[in-house]
């Protein structure tokens, strides 16, 4: 037995690539990735034009805000919660950004928007982590609060978004390379580094997996949870700014649509709503899939009302298949062994 051990140390010293795959599988990312690839192929077959510069940019600007908010939702789901107020947070950051642009320099406006997102996240986080209240209840209430603050800040669409800002966020960096995708990648990679390559990131997964164990291990479970909420708020604010910029307007109701769609994206990403499992890549690709179904139907010439039905079926199939497959293989193993 112990003879085998040094060998293991060697093996583990250079973790085989399969370890990454294993982690992706454990985090439920395989299915959404596959789904996206299939979806993308279908899309390109039905509408090769997608690969034209113009359509790429259109598609990118459509999915990037959703992808970012979905990442914000993912963080909350990872610590075993759910954020009903995420749409309101988005609206609030959106209008703060848009209105501040009329008064202060762009970088300051950005900082303010991110700050507001952080504040909203911490507000929810404090009540959940230190107040011991369920996330769904807290965010249900704070959704009303943030939403009405947003409408106090800006009562109707408007604000100081300029052409320049549009180009800087939603234009093209290089031909065929929409800027919005670059910003999304930056956020996604940073978040990935944080979740996979820092202790705090692992704590976040751990807290969702079993809060009591994390605390018994001497880690500050509550602080970790609080930080996850704050981080989520910041990422949501980035999504809000991307939305404001790509629509060239601030809008106090712009976030409303993103509550259910962000949850749906996280769901399609195969994350566990009990916490502790979920992947960034899966979430981003899930958001792209859901965000583009409407487009696909348009080019396929199908009544757009079908998109509600089709989105639902995709979620059922993509999230359901791995489970069924798992059962089958398990049953088979049971037979064989």
């Amino acid at each position: 037995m112990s003879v085998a051990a040094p060998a293991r140390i060697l093996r583990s010293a250079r973790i085989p690539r399969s370890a990454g795959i294993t982690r992706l599988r454990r985090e439920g990312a395989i299915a959404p990735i596959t789904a996206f690839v299939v979806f993308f192929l279908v899309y390109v077959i039905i509408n090769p034009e997608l690969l034209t510069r113009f359509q790429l940019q259109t598609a990118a600007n459509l999915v990037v805000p959703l992808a970012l908010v979905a990442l914000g939702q993912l963080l909350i789901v990872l610590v075993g919660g759910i954020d009903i107020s995420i749409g309101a947070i988005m609206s609030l950051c959106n209008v703060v950004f848009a209105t501040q642009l009329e008064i202060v320099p762009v970088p300051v406006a950005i900082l303010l928007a991110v700050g507001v997102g952080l504040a909203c996240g911490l507000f929810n986080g404090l009540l959940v982590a230190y107040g011991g209240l369920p996330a769904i209840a807290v965010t249900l209430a704070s959704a009303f609060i943030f939403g009405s603050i947003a409408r106090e800040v800006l009562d109707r669409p408007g604000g100081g978004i300029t052409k320049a800002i549009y180009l800087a966020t939603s234009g093209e960096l290089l031909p065929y390379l929409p800027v919005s995708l670059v910003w999304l990648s930056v956020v996604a990679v940073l978040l990935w580094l944080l979740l996979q390559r820092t202790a705090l990131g692992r704590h976040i997964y751990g807290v969702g997996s079993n809060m009591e164990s994390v605390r018994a291990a001497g880690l500050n479970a509550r602080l970790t949870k609080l930080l996850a909420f704050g981080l989520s708020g910041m990422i949501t604010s980035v999504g809000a700014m991307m939305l404001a910029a790509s629509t060239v307007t601030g809008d106090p109701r712009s976030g409303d649509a993103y509550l259910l769609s962000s949850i749906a994206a996280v769901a399609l990403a195969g994350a566990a709503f009990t916490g502790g499992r979920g992947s960034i890549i899966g979430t981003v690709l899930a958001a792209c899939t859901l965000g583009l179904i409407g487009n696909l139907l348009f080019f396929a010439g199908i009544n757009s009302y079908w998109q509600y039905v089709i989105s639902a079926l995709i979620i059922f199939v993509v999230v359901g298949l791995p489970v069924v497959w798992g059962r089958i293989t398990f049953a088979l193993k049971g037979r064989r062994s």
Partner: protein
Amino acid sequence: MTSSTVPASQSPAGAPSGKPLGSASVRQLGSRIPRSTWPLIAFVVLFVIGGLIRPNLITIDSLVGTATFAIILAIASFGQTIAVIQAGIDLSVPNTIAFSALAFLGLVAPFGPVGAFAAALLTGAVIGLLNGVVISKLGLTPIVTTIAMNGLLFGAILLVFNFSELTAIPESLLAITSAKISLLGVETAAVLPLGLVLMGVLQLVLSFTGWGRSLFVVGSAAEVARLGGLPVDRIRIGGYVLSGVLAAFAGVVIVGYYQQASATMGASYLLSSVAAVVVGGASIFGGRGSVVGTVGGALVLAQVSTLVAVLNLGANIQQLIYGVIILLVISLYGRRNSA
């Protein structure tokens, strides 16, 4: 050495301020008073506050008025309660409501009120069955399943129904919902007693039948139920079927009371049904909850809207205050660890 017991409040320095000192005693109290009465107490407090602001708010009629809107929300939230008790959630309530309402109106002409009513409940049962099967047999999480189902239903509503052919609402339905009746000399809409009776029946089922209790076991520890030999899947599916039927019932009641039906008529119940259940003292993690509590939760929500209306601060600020009061109420007894 003689053991000296020191009052709980006197905790040593350096202890984390995580749990407020009072919480232990709060929990003691909570354990003595049944949870389902907490929201009712909260309602009474809010009702009295209303009276202090506007004396004419503390009349019987005012109470009945609030209770009427509360009971409609409660009826729409009974299904949600069942789902939450079994550690699930039913986010397809909104479009189950709309679907059954539209189905009812569409079918009154061919099948008559009773037939249409039965058909509407049946649609709810089928929706619930699908939710239940996907959740327990495919093992998808309830949130995912029911959100997807809600979307699917909206598409179906838009594709299936021809709104122009919805016939007018049958008298018999009006008679059990919006019609004024007088109970013990109090004038009230028929929907109020209807809802209270439904509450009574459901509470009996939940507290005093084997099925009801099994639902709680499944909700607080599914694996325990399974290894105890309970038919977990059947219990779950049954729960979602009942949840769907109750949402469908709510759809018909809403048509009767408001005499309105549209594709988006359920939308507001997505969050408010969850709110009523949570404010009603159920644990969103399952294993705890009651329909009596849910009625209390709905009463609290309705009373809060009555209160904010009094303030006349403008619609938007009233929304903010609404949120704040909800937050205060749930922080009173919504703690995850208070059993």
